[in-house]
């Protein structure tokens, strides 16, 4: 604020001096021009000439406030519109020069109550024979103007300083209030209420941007926390049950009669159970890691068609063994930005599911289509499908369909697909293929074409 006031004062000061200076120069120029004229008259016509011109000018004033006076060496007026030589200017040291001398003085005019004092600026020229010529102007106007200007400038400085102070106060109070709002909200969040969000005013200013960034960050934190909770729940559910099963089977065997055959059978089933636990555990970790986001996953441009061909080729013998036809129509190039391993794992889950659930002699359809904006992977099977009510449910993290006894696997396949889709910012959709299931993954086309 100090800087502001100082610069305002400096600016106004400059305007003041420039204006005063201009008016002074104007007055001086006029006096100079007249003086020159008078001196010329003298050189042409001598004293008579100069007396004539002064008399003439004093009689026909071109502007009010002009004064002309010709006086002898004793300062006694000879002609002009001043009744006496101004007392203030008497002792001015004057040489007999045509250059003359600048003087300031006051004169009184009028009588009694109407008597007024006027401030003059004039030039006195010493003429060779001891005479003096005085030519001047009333600078009272200029003085009054100067005073008005000074007052105006002083007031504007005061008013501006006050305005600056008030404005600064208001602005900082407003800013502090908004900072306070953010601080209060974050306090509530620290105290455990993660649903709180910083208010956004919708003005799009810096505070709004800060607030909405904070809110997005909070959303992300909340998502992660919810994800964490889901992981712990799933771990408890998906791993707790088989561990209990394993333990009780071993305990039951030990409690029974010692028999090598029973022991062997129990141990073999224990190994199978631990394998299953491990597979579930791996799936949970894979899903959690894909859910948490891109860190640690290298994303590179790849052609989805090549990946699909690769997987088709990998699964073709299995499908043949089950007397399934896989039909495919693949776009030539389908560039996507992807992590090859996780995407391959997700797509192989989808193909695997399709093969698993399609009855013998059925068909599976696999498409990769590409538009300038999007790349889509679609797989259709002719199996039992997923009931409409359960489809949405299945896309949520860690949700598993009720596992049927004859279908192997952890039942977490689609959850992994959903997590990998999220990692790739792809849209996963489950639809009815009447009969069967149609799963599609829609990616943003990768712009770095091959």
């Amino acid at each position, binding site marked *: 604020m100090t800087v502001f006031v100082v610069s305002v004062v400096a600016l106004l000061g400059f305007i003041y001096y420039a204006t005063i200076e201009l008016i002074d120069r104007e007055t001086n120029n006029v006096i100079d021009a007249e003086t020159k004229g008078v001196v010329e008259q003298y050189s042409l016509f001598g004293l008579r000439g100069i007396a004539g011109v002064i008399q003439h000018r004093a009689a026909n004033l071109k502007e009010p406030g002009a004064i002309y006076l010709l006086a002898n060496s004793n300062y006694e007026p000879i002609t002009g519109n001043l009744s006496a030589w101004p007392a203030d200017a008497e002792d001015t040291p004057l040489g007999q020069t045509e250059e003359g001398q600048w003087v300031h003085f006051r004169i009184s005019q009028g009588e009694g109550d109407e008597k007024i004092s006027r401030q003059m600026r004039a030039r006195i020229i010493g003429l060779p024979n001891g005479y003096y010529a005085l030519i001047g102007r009333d600078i009272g106007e200029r003085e009054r103007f100067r005073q008005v200007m000074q007052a105006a400038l002083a007031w504007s400085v005061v008013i501006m300083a006050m305005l600056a102070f008030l404005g600064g106060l208001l602005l900082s109070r407003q800013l502090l209030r908004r900072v306070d709002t953010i601080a209060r909200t974050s306090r509530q969040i620290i105290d455990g209420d993660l649903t709180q969000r910083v208010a956004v005013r919708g003005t799009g200013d810096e505070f709004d941007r800060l607030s909405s960034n904070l809110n997005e960050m909070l959303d992300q934190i909340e998502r992660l926390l919810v994800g964490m909770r889901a992981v712990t729940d799933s771990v408890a559910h998906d791993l707790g049950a088989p561990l209990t099963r394993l333990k009780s089977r071993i305990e039951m065997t030990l409690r029974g009669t010692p028999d090598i055959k029973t022991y062997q059978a129990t141990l073999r089933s224990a190994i199978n159970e*631990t394998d299953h636990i*491990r597979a579930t555990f791996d799936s949970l970790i894979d899903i959690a890691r894909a859910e948490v986001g891109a860190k640690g996953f290298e994303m590179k441009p790849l052609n989805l068609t090549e990946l699909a061909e690769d997987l088709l080729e*990998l*699964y073709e*013998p*299995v499908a043949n063994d089950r007397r399934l036809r896989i039909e495919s129509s693949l776009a030539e190039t389908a560039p996507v930005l992807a992590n090859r391993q996780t995407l391959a794992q997700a797509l*192989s889950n989808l193909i695997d599911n399709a093969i698993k659930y399609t009855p013998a002699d059925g068909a599976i359809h696999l498409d990769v289509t590409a538009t300038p904006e999007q790349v889509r992977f679609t797989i259709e099977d002719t199996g039992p499908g997923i009931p409409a009510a359960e489809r949405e449910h299945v896309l949520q993290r860690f949700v598993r369909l009720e596992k049927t006894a004859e279908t192997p*696997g952890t039942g977490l396949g689609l959850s992994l697909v959903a997590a990998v889709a999220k990692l790739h910012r792809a849209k996963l959709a489950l639809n009815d293929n009447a009969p069967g299931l149609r799963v599609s993954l829609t990616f943003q086309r990768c712009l770095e074409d091959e």
Partner: protein
Amino acid sequence: MHILVIEDDREMAAYLTKGLKEHGYTVDHAADGREGLFLAATGDFDLLIIDRMLPHTDGLSIVKLLREQGIKSRILLLSALSQVDDRVSGLKAGADDYLAKPYAFSELLARIEVLLRRKDSEGEQSRLRVGNLEMDLIARTVARAGKPIELKPREFRLLEYLMRHPGQVVTRTMLLEGVWDYHFDPQTNVIDAQVSRLRQKIDKGFDKPLIHTIRGAGYSLRAAD
């Protein structure tokens, strides 16, 4: 063959040592990173089996330090971290192979075999031969008993992998990693179907099969004597 096991879990270590000894290996054991590094630095071992998480000095640092010292022993890293990037960081540090815990002992054994028999000059051969089966790596042709066999590119790579490890057990995971470069577990056993298709082309019409199934482990390509 002399193997050093660096593993802090006593039970795990005892299980490994016992199993490896039964298969004819000489086995030493170190229970922490410092002792392991000290022993391994002698360079007396053909193979080091190193757990990734160890007290004092972790497995990854041991691998790096040993490679910096110019120790050429084969190294197999064991880890509870199964993600691809963990695997990549292990191999980058200088390990020759990487196996996620828990593993089947047969898987570990197969990988040890492969590592110990790997030759440094591998990859410079232009022809592979197992029994009467011949593969020309430059012309990309395969023939058995002089009769040409048509293979798809991927079948060719599968067979090449098997022929590069003749007589050794090759697990399904090793095939999936080595031939397809997939480091996850496809739930259905796709590898079995792939191998059985290859078997159709290689062994059909011949008395003596070359591709053998090893129960509970994987496959092995060998000429019957």
